[in-house]
């Protein structure tokens, strides 16, 4: 299949096969997840040598560990002997990792150190240096977020993020101390294709009024009043090179408790030192974005969540959502952030539940033998983007799909590459 034909860049359509076809999914595992920068966690989760965590890059289980030289290393979590996962816990601190099957043991630099019965069974003929854990060649970070890339030839993370860094800084660099991850991860399963989640955070503000209407009715969602009559520089979306997208809007929603409001004042004051003048005015309100391919970020009601939409087949997503908080935030601010994130955007989140309720539906419908012939419309705002000096990207008022379709334009480029 010519995967690039799934995206019609003239008519701004996406073919249903992009969302349910097992062949497309398999190709994606290589052409997207095999070559793009994938978020594997936050530096603050691994403060000391020997600290490790396990996660997945695409569907591949990886072991992330800080080595004795304090470098973050990433390895395929699979023994070179029979392939068993050498680390079967989520996180911890270790000097070495022993495969449970036959006992091959690797150190925190991935080297094969221990082989039971090396002399008797292998006759001293096993070259241990040749059987290290397979290392993921590229590991880089941005403002504490850790990324890895299976492609040794990939552009740097810095180049990949490009103009998106300017927007990510609105959340990750708005205070002097930067952010740390709260302990624990919200992990839950949803029906649907991973791209549906990524595209939505990357620029679909349009869904809020309908899908999250229950939240507007109980006073926790942005009401429809902000649409249309506010200056486009305040409430806008940005389409960035590299398939990234950003939504920024300044709609007051309820009142934050006094200690949290006081803390946010501190943050905005510090932002005057850490951010450029054009950025400082955007620290208020709500920020939502997607870093291509499957990392999204949301700052809302005093909390910051980053989440990875792990693909689990064309029709299933495993969400791993982390909570970030300013390193210097006082305990009551941390608690408020943790509670609000859990209430709204989490495994039990009263916003997030409704997103999960439709993504599975989309994929089930699109795979119908008839429905699959009719493409999906992503044309909203096409050709109406504008530029603003000092602010990166192609910009548009809320709502638009220029950022959402930008995600697919970039996906198309990834998928068109021969492997």
């Amino acid at each position, binding site marked *: 299949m010519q995967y690039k034909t799934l995206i019609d860049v003239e008519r701004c359509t996406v073919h249903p096969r992009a969302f349910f076809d097992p062949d497309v999914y398999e190709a994606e595992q290589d052409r997207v997840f095999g070559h793009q920068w994938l978020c594997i966690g936050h530096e603050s989760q691994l403060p000391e040598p020997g600290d490790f965590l396990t996660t997945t890059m695409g569907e591949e289980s990886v072991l992330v560990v800080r080595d004795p030289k304090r470098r973050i290393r990433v390895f395929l979590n699979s023994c070179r002997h029979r392939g068993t996962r050498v680390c079967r816990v989520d996180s911890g601190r270790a000097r070495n990792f022993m495969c449970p099957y036959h006992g091959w043991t690797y150190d925190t630099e991935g080297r094969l150190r221990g082989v039971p019965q090396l002399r008797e069974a292998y006759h001293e003929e096993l070259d241990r240096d040749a059987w290290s854990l397979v290392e993921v060649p590229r590991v880089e970070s941005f403002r504490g977020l850790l990324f890895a890339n299976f492609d040794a030839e990939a552009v740097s993370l810095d180049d990949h993020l490009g103009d998106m860094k300017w927007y990510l800084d609105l959340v990750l660099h708005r205070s002097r101390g930067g952010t740390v991850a709260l*302990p624990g991860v*919200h992990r839950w399963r949803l029906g649907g294709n991973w791209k549906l989640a990524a595209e939505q955070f990357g620029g679909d503000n349009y869904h809020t009024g309908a899908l999250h209407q229950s939240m507007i009715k109980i006073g926790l969602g942005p009401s429809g009043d902000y649409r249309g009559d506010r200056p486009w520089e305040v409430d806008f979306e940005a389409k960035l090179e590299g398939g990234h997208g950003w939504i920024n809007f300044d709609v007051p929603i309820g009142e934050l408790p006094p200690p949290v409001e006081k803390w946010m004042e501190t943050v905005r004051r510090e932002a005057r030192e850490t951010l450029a003048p054009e950025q400082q005015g955007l620290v208020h309100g709500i920020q939502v974005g997607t870093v291509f391919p499957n990392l999204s970020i949301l700052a809302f009601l005093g909390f910051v969540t980053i989440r990875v939409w792990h693909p689990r087949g064309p029709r299933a997503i495993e969400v791993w959502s982390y909570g970030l908080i300013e390193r210097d935030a006082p305990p009551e601010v941390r608690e408020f952030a943790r509670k609000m994130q859990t209430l709204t955007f989490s*495994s039990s989140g009263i916003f997030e539940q409704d997103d999960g309720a439709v993504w599975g539906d989309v994929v089930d419908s699109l795979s119908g033998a008839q429905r699959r012939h009719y493409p999906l419309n992503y044309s909203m705002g096409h050709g109406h983007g504008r530029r603003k000096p000092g602010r990166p990207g192609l910009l548009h008022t809320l709502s638009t799909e220029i950022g959402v379709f930008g995600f697919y334009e970039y996906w198309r480029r990834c998928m068109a590459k021969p492997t």
Partner: protein
Amino acid sequence: MSETDARALRFEFEELLYREAAWLDEGRFEEWLELFDSTVRYWAPVRENVPRGEEPLEELHRLTHFEDDKGNLELRVKRLRTGFAHAEEPPSRTRHFVTNVRVLDGDDSDRVSVASNLLVFRSRERRDEVLFSCDRRDRWRRTQAGWRCEERRILFDHDVIESLTVLF
């Protein structure tokens, strides 16, 4: 406490927890809410795969699947009543199965800790049939209006969980 009193107390909580389960399955959420004290902590730790005995369930500032006070529980119910809570509209069908009810300490006649196992079946829209299994640890306080729950810890037997659109 005499054995007769202990049996009576356990019977009382079995009745209470069965009634609560019926209210949830029948969508009588406002009545369900009344069981909770105004100071309630309703929470559910996230589970982690770590060596035996090392799971940090009580760690400070740790993310949880639920971290609700009374106000948050009321918001969840209020949302369900808007008619636009799409994850539960049309509503899922649930069945709460309560077993293994144990009164853990009942020496203070006004405050009791109660453990129970809970299995919840949920189905919706011709597909998506799931089971949630958990241990509940409650702390109940005797009031003039009856027992009120001051704390409920829901310990799910899942590390990666299905979307939690229902109450436990």
